[in-house]
């Protein structure tokens, strides 16, 4: 199952500065929830200081998660089940002006 990840607003600094990632997730046995994806990202993409991405089970305060350009809060957050071609955007909220 192909899924696209994007990191913006500074969140890309957690994944080596790479803003776009295309994953091919093995979905033969288990469904991929966003919760499972977050753990996968922490274990496979985050270079250092994983606590700046995940805190407990969820993303740390200040990062918004958008699934196909829609706030994950409208889609079930951690329980949302990913489907083919989903786009998951992690964006740090900016504060500069």
């Amino acid at each position, binding site marked *: 199952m192909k899924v696209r990840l994007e990191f913006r607003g*500074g969140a890309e600094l957690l994944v080596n500065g790479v803003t776009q990632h295309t994953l091919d997730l093995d979905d033969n046995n288990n469904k991929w929830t966003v919760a499972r994806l977050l753990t996968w990202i922490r274990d496979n993409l985050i270079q250092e200081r994983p606590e700046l991405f995940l805190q407990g089970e969820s993303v740390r*305060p200040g990062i918004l998660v958008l699934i196909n*350009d829609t*706030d994950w809060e409208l889609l079930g957050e951690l329980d949302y089940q990913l489907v083919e071609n989903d786009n998951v955007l992690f964006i740090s909220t*900016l*504060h500069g*002006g």
Partner: protein
Amino acid sequence: PDKHQHPLNHREVARYSRQLILPEFGPEGQRKLSSTSVLIVGCGGLGCPAAIYLAAAGVGRLGLIDYDTVELNNLHRQILHTEGRVGVAKAVSVALSVKALNSHVELVPYEVALTSQVALIIISKYDIVLDCTDNVATRYLLNDACVLGNKPLVSGSALRYEGQLTVYHHNGGPCFRCLHPKPPPPETVTNCSDGGVLGVVPGMIGCLQALEAIKLASGLGTPLSQKLLLFDALQGTFRTVKLRGGKSDCEVCGETPTITKLIDYEQFCGAAATDKEKGVQLL
């Protein structure tokens, strides 16, 4: 007398003629705009373009808050200041530039930091508030003050090559706290002093803040409520994402709010309300 009803005078017709012939705007839009007051918090990279375009369009009263003075390193993006005004209060400097363009806008510069002591009093005098600030603590403060004072908050931000824009606390949309109930860890927050910013990025976002304020004031178009605009200057791309609505359990705008007066936001965020230094862990 209802200020919306006053006929436009000769000077206004001459000055605003290119707006007045817009069918959806017209004299009615101009009257609404001239009877609207807008508070701009932060007279820097976002506040400069927002202030000049709102004044040009003929907003009635413009409040300008900034505690800071103009520095040379501001001038790469803060386009209403000048070399000759380095050292001058930013609120005063912006007021001078705005007045030269449109002397008929009432200008109220505030050379103060927005604190929990003064925020509600100042905000109560305005119809619309623009968040043109540069730090997390002031953003929470301004959000809570706008919810408590029931004003729409046009929030812009910019860093490096990216910008973000949304309208909070308007028409059932979320407030900043609905999206971010907990502040970010201070070490994850970068300001323009530390991270840098391409000057035209706050330029774009500040223009869009002026546009959203004009739309709110005149009733024109669709405000960017419950939506977040993301701007990427390097790619030249814009993207609008859909946000949650106002949350019923939000601590400030929810059904049973626990925040009913302003708190200590530097303590809440563990970071100072300034862009001068890296946020300090106060907690």
